[in-house]
């Protein structure tokens, strides 16, 4: 059994430091690792990355993150990632990591992801150069997620993105902005590997649960959606059931 805690869209700046800490101090009692689905900061500044590292660093469990669109706002995403990595937190972007937990190998592959929309209402690689660049970015990122997922050897495989891989977890958002919230190519990448769980954020007004066309459970863990410091998901469970008291 592996228990994974997850949250996204924590948007840390100096004013937030300390808010999560009481719940984070309890986290090792209820989960073996913490995954964070992007938008770690407000504007993607190095100072905010330091605040994030202060709030989410130094836990007694491994922490794995992807960046979100907010973390790119200042065009300093590489420096942001370095500050976070220097705090002992793994930052994934088309890459993966394997965590040894209680004799099980938890594999996590992640990318930020991008928009593009979903089947029947998606952008096409056609027309103006700007539109072709947009869709090419979507496809390149999804291809990197697929390669990262397929390259992991593990007992339980989790996909971690900021943008959504399915429309179901966007329910509650205006339909008009779905193409800015995720893309079907991420779902296709997730289905191309033996993924056990897909986690994303970005959609603050979305819904918690969905599945990819291939049947992989998807959870939107954006902080305003889950309304607590983190959710906990149990993988490789021997028993069936739904909710279990911590």
């Amino acid at each position, binding site marked *: 059994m592996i*228990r994974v805690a997850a949250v996204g869209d*924590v*948007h*840390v700046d100096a*004013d*937030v430091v300390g*808010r*999560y800490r*009481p*719940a984070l101090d*309890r*986290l090792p009692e*209820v989960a073996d690792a913490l995954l964070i689905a992007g938008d770690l900061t*407000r*504007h993607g500044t190095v100072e905010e990355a330091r605040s994030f590292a202060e709030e989410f660093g130094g836990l007694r469990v491994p922490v794995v993150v992807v960046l979100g669109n*907010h973390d790119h*706002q200042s065009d300093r995403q590489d420096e942001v990632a370095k500050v976070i990595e220097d705090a002992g937190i793994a930052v994934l972007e088309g890459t993966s990591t394997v965590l040894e937990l209680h004799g099980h190998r938890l594999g996590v592959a992640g990318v930020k992801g991008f928009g593009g929309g979903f089947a029947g209402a998606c952008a096409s690689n056609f027309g103006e150069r700007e539109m072709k660049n947009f869709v090419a970015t979507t496809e390149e990122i999804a291809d990197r997620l697929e390669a990262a997922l397929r390259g992991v050897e593990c007992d339980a495989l989790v996909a971690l993105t900021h943008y959504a891989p399915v429309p179901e977890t966007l329910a509650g958002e205006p339909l008009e902005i779905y193409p800015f919230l995720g893309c079907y190519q991420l779902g296709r990448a997730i289905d191309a590997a033996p993924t*056990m*769980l897909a986690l994303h954020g970005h959609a*603050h*007004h979305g819904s918690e649960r969905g599945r990819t066309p291939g049947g992989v*459970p998807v959870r939107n863990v954006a*902080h*305003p959606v889950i*309304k*607590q*410091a*983190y*959710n*906990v*998901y*149990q*993988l490789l*469970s021997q*028993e*069936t*059931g*739904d*909710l*279990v*008291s*911590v």
Partner: protein
Amino acid sequence: MTHQLDNLEAEIQRLLTENDRTAEQGITVQRRENAVVLGGEVESAQRRDEICRQITSRFPEIEITCDIGITRAQAPTEVEEIS
């Protein structure tokens, strides 16, 4: 009402996203006559108050009702089994 107010909801949403002091994409804006109701959640009371300050400063003639909440950050009490 000025021409700018014809696109009030869009103007407010872009202001809240693009202004460095707010950078919020998750705020809903509902228009009622000469007033707007703001919804959604942010990470701190300072951010909520800054949102109202920015809108009041840009659109002083608009009455604001702020229903923005602060997202709770307590530890969970349940685990979901994934199967």
